[in-house]
């Protein structure tokens, strides 16, 4: 795809910030759309470019892990496909260097890949690949210290998850620690598509919004443009993974993911 502007590998997206990009879009009255794409699938960088061109405010890039406990069947399958194709954290970060799409990127991966890489080394690798943020769903507040120190030091935004099971005291501490945006878990469960928006989604979004001015995006269980619009009556935006990844896998086309992103973006703009 032509939007992919190959540079000679210098972290061309660096300098972008999730909080700034999302925050300015919200300030302008918009709702944010952040798709999740599994890194390491064939041509995955094309998918990132397509998502950007379709109007996403940021893109979440999954670095596949062998044991993704927070993920449902679609992301598990796409992760396994990428791993079978030989994807590694190193190859994905290397390939990410060539992405120049003008919106911030974040990685979503699991603790062990980062721990094995080394926290500081990983944080610096993100920066040199032009990646602004990191989402690590199995590193909660209690364990985030060493990683957060490394990430803060390198200028990487650590997105924290806020879940419906937390009391307000805990939510306060979560949003305090969050950088970039607050990833608000819309339901009790793992990633995957649901027929309707869970009743918990707007409730938790409202609770989190009451505690912070940081961008509040709802993810997990947001599957359709209508559901996105519904939850954005409260939230500042959504993260959508399984629906888009399924579309890419079923069609075998990264561009098809971009088309679905466009549907979400259009729906959210209409409100």
């Amino acid at each position, binding site marked *: 795809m032509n939007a992919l502007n190959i540079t000679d590998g210098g972290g061309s997206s660096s300098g972008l910030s999730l909080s700034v990009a999302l925050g300015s879009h919200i300030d302008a009255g918009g709702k944010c759309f952040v798709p999740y794409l599994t890194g390491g699938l064939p041509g995955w960088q094309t998918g990132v470019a397509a998502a950007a061109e379709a109007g996403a405010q940021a893109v979440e890039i999954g670095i596949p892990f062998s044991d*993704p406990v927070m993920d449902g069947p679609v992301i598990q399958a796409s992760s396994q496909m990428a*791993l079978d194709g030989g994807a590694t954290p190193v190859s994905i970060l290397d390939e990410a260097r060539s992405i120049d799409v003008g919106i911030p990127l974040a990685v979503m991966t699991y603790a062990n890949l980062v721990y094995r890489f080394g926290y500081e080394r990983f944080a610096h690798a993100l920066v040199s690949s032009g990646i602004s943020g990191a989402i690590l769903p199995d590193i909660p507040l209690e364990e985030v210290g060493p990683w957060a120190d490394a990430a803060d030091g390198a200028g990487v935004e650590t997105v924290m998850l806020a879940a419906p099971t937390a009391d307000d005291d805990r939510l306060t501490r979560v949003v305090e620690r969050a950088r970039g945006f607050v990833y608000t878990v819309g339901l009790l469960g793992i990633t995957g598509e649901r027929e309707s928006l869970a009743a918990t989604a707007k409730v938790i979004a409202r609770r989190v919004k009451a505690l912070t001015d940081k961008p509040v995006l709802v993810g997990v269980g947001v599957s359709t443009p209508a559901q996105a619009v519904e939850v954005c009556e409260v939230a500042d935006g959504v993260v959508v993974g399984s629906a888009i990844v399924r579309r890419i896998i079923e069609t075998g086309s990264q561009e098809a993911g971009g088309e679905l992103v466009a549907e979400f973006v259009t729906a959210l703009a209409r409100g």
Partner: protein
Amino acid sequence: MNGSESRQDDGPEGGTNAEPRKIMGEPTGIGRFGDFGGLFVPETLVPALQELDAAFHEAWADRSFRDELDDLLREYAGRPSPLTECQRLGEQLGIRLFLKREDLNHTGSHKINNVLGQALLAKRMGKSRLLAETGAGQHGVATATAAALLDMECLVYMGEVDMARQELNVFRMRLLGAEVTPAVSGSRTLKDAVNEAMRDWVSTVEYSHYCLGSVMGPHPYPYMVREFHRVIGDEAAAQFAERVGGSDANCAELSGLPDVVVACVGGGSNAAGIFSGFAEHPSVELIGVEPAGGAAIGNGVPGIVHGMLSYLKQDEFGQVQEAESISAGLDYPGVGPEHSHLSDIGRARYESVTDDEVIDAFVLLSRTEGIIPALESAHAIAWVAREHEQLKGRSVIVNLSGRGDKDVAQMMDIMGSTLDGHTSAGERPADHSSADANTTGERK
């Protein structure tokens, strides 16, 4: 916000005028055994784990809870389990060999100790549903049993591969009223069953209790499960002292302590249970026996999976490698964090045995003592048999963690129903000698 945080600073072992810190005491900080352990779970589960931690501490300090559990262990599970001296095998190996007979517990293994404890606790916490993962099926059967006894719903995740090789236990669980769901991702064994159980728990945490089956996972499981199995070590220590006489603590012969305590290690719950009765006595050697194809401490490096930081078989990028062992119960690429710690501080030693050595030990114990061991427990026997020269003249307790009934069909496949094929290791078909085969770590 709850007890778990305040305990970081003023726990029973942490106070200034407390006794010296126990080797197998409470973890420090957030579930740390030295550098290992922790709470590496999705945010959704953190409040539930904190609640569980507080509920366990409260229950464990409550006389009525302890009495109720002790009662069940005695009247229902059949505790205390005997300490059997193996006359024939001991003579053959030139050692005094004792077996802690966890195989004689109700449901056929040590697993019932932990399960009765957790099920009572779950009930006390108002949970109506038990979730479990299982490898060989022993923990699943024990959980299904406790659920039937206490009128709770039960769902067990089991790797598809394990369901095939432990068909009998699958039927037992269903007979007991549990639902058994295959884990079809990854290696389709124990590690994947844990993944599925955690995913289920993330969705049903409000009414489900995850009855984790080993001293692994996020805090408080490694600590709590060990405490529920401490009874193994406490009983064994008292039984041994009574048997050999414990009149003189300064004389090795008369100290009332064994020289060596041996247990198999997958996640490591039976080992943690028996070690806890002896860890504070430095003269007692503690040996954990891992399968050669799944030796987390032997071949792994520290990593994070299933909520804990511990030794883990993984590739250079941190992808978890599949374990490969003849025994479904030890087919696990990780190990409980306390074992990683005991290994690092040199208090316990972790060795490994091959599948062939295990098969030999399975037959050896059957024929010399009339006891058919679980394939898991046969790992401990195999180590003792292999190392008997260095053990000569010493007293050894092996934790016989389970009985081998569940393994008989699998062994019949391996050895042939006439046992014609069995003479010694090395003559069996190569495809059963899988212990060294899994070093590439490539994923299917």
